[in-house]
């Protein structure tokens, strides 16, 4: 092997960084692409099945309710606040701030999950009634799975910050978790439109 010749030093480079320079960001963005594609496909299946029917929802299938879904949507939008708080606190290395934000976000997240369960009743169709029911449940459950993984992540973060002195990288992870949560909320908007508003457009 040829001998090494030192041409530079890198001792002073940081060992943790926020944002796209760090590896975690790339993992989270890749996950967004993957989940985003999956949700887009669920939506695609919904649109594909639409063309098999003259009416939508199909005849004898009621429209989905708007009440509980709207409350849940509002709650989801509200969670942006604690998520942002986590982001801000993490970048300031404020363990307490992250703990408060993450705990709030986690609690609201669980509430959203509970409401999502009621949303599944509120669509007024079962997954096995017809293909319309299947694709509606497909969209709702698909998004719910994406959401539940992030809620679990947030709960885990809150626990970690509560019990243990976090490492540097956990502050970075908290920021990335916020970004993923923004994705969870943002991806719901077109899906909400598709499931609850589009059938009402006549």
């Amino acid at each position, binding site marked *: 092997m040829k001998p090494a010749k*030192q041409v530079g030093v890198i001792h002073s480079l940081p060992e*943790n960084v926020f944002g796209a320079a760090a590896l975690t960001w790339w993992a989270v963005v890749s996950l967004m692409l993957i989940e985003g*594609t999956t949700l887009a496909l669920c939506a695609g299946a919904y649109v594909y099945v639409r063309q098999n029917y003259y009416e939508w929802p199909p005849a004898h299938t009621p429209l989905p309710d708007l009440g509980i879904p709207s409350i849940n949507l509002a709650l989801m939008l509200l969670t942006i606040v604690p998520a942002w708080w986590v982001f801000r606190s993490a970048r300031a290395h404020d363990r307490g701030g992250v703990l408060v934000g993450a705990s709030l976000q986690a609690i609201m997240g669980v509430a959203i999950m509970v409401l999502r369960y009621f949303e599944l009743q509120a669509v007024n169709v079962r997954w096995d009634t017809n293909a319309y029911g299947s694709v509606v449940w497909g969209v709702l459950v698909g998004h719910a799975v994406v959401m539940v993984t992030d809620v679990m992540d947030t709960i885990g973060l809150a626990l970690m910050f509560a019990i243990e002195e976090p490492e540097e990288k956990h502050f970075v992870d908290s920021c990335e978790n916020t970004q993923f949560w923004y994705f969870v909320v943002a991806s719901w908007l077109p899906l909400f439109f598709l499931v609850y508003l589009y059938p009402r457009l006549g």
Partner: protein
Amino acid sequence: MTAASPPVIDLPPAVDPADHARLRRTYEPIRGFYAWLASVDHKSIAKRYIATCLVFFALGGLEAAVIRAQLSRPENGLVGPDTYNQVFTMHGTTMMFLFAVPIMQAMGLYLVPLMVGAKETAFPRLNALGYWVFLIGGVFIYTGFFLNAGADAGWFAYVPLSGPEYSSGKRVDIWAQMITFTEIAALIAALQTIATVLKLRAPGMSLNRMPLFLWAQLVTAFMVIFAMPSVATGSLFLSFDRLVGSQFYNPAEGGDALLWQHLFWFFGHPEVYIIFIPALGFISQIVTTFTRRPVVGYPVMVLALLVTAFMSFGLWVHHMFATTVPQLGSTFFTAASTLIAVPTGVQIFCWIATLWLGRPVWRTPLLFVMGFIAVFTIGGLTGVMVASVPFDLQAHDSYFVVAHLHYVLLGGAVFPLFAAFYYWFPKITGRLMNERLGRWNFWLLFVGVNVTFFPMHRLGLEGMTRRVYTYLESTGWGTLNLVSSVGAVIIVAGMAVFVVNLARSWRGGAVAGANPWDADTLEWATSSPPPPYNFADPIVVTSRSGLWAYGDEIPVLQGLRTDLPQVLVTTVMDAEPVLRHIHPSPTIAPFVMAVIIGAMLIGGIFTPWAYPAGLVAIGVPWLMWAWPRRRSYEHQEELKGTFSLEAPI
């Protein structure tokens, strides 16, 4: 399993030679079975992956042997229709899901960190998870097969045949769930590759100096991310139709049999390019090394990879020309399917030009490259034929297509893979494979593949359809089928020679040293096999020609820790050093998580409640995984490290 220790020579360059011992301690703190189970070393994981894929390749080959034996004579009674249907389904399923894609990714998982000059892959624990999930999925479907619950609806399992009404039992459920397992593993590998290639490249390895192999792996990883979700979604819909009575694919309730085909083929077409493009990466490196010069037309080669990948997402309907797709739509897919030959053709022209301008060194890898050119070109030309709707309506679902797909897969993936094995075996094990056996291996495979599959073009045009367990003598298909089956025996002989070569070279091959081929890429700048830490000091890359550009010394940077496992993170475009990333230590958490995912998915074929239960249970190993580890590092103060709010991307 490690190769019988070849002498440790040619350690990677280090300004301070004492670093080697320190790094060895840091990267290999414990040994033994538990260490193996908890390992997050990308090389260890990739070797397991490759070995597992080769086992599946052998199983897929055995299934092929049964097929060819059964079809060698008309009205043969070797196996009945039920067994045959399981065998051909398992053959396709094994080859596509358990061998072809994973092995290309596994070769990447081994080579990419080395080729970018990094100590480790971007997400070592996630890497381990990917392998275990893959292993459990493969064992799962084969357990089903051995219990007479083998998938039997074809590797693309069209509904309604694979639906609840026409496929009873758990056969198709097992198949559909295997897809979930392998899809998770593939996505994890893709995520790894993207982050490693974009962020862990050696300083100075700007994008336009990156070896073509890395471009191929990067492009493939993006394709996996956009294609895999389609088959996973489709197969989950199928599972739910079968398990809980959803109606996605049931025409009686507004569902659609063609929805399955669209979801499957939107994945299925890119899938074959996911298999093919990494092989193109192998070829570029091998042609470079064995013609002693860089491949001609680097920017065109990169563009060709990007265009091929992009276009491959616009072809899928060509699998559905015989359905009710309207003629206008088919026109688009015919055009795309025909024109995709251009970027690949251009790559072949560039390699031929490189051969012309270079000074070929005739070793086994280059032989397999020549074989690839011949076999793949035939496959590509029949591909242009079936791109046309009128001709495809004759050839579709006949043995003509079987011929086409095997020519492109064997020519375009397996031959390059064998070239890659002969080429990189010395790096992985420290020993060279035998050249004479390599030549026998090549010629037997080359002859065998042509004898087996060429007659199938004719058989297809003579009316022989796919997936038939037998045929009447008066169809006249007997002679060509017999010839084809003889060819299969020749292929088996070629594979046997490979196995013998592998076994003999593993412990008895000539010692290779760091760079037996005098190649130019960074993996050859460390010992063979590489030490656990791959490299000591990050090597600075100064040109597209890598190692060939250095004089008497190799330029390196100093400053990564040796007391903690640390990689240098660089910018995406120009690979400027930006961050020193401490990566995680070995842990059993990924293995535990894979077991729980396995339990969840296997349970999921019996009851939908397995999913929520599993998701909750995953929380436990996840916490194990991510929990702040205070005790594993010695210097708790230094653990805080330095931080920065912003850094260049």
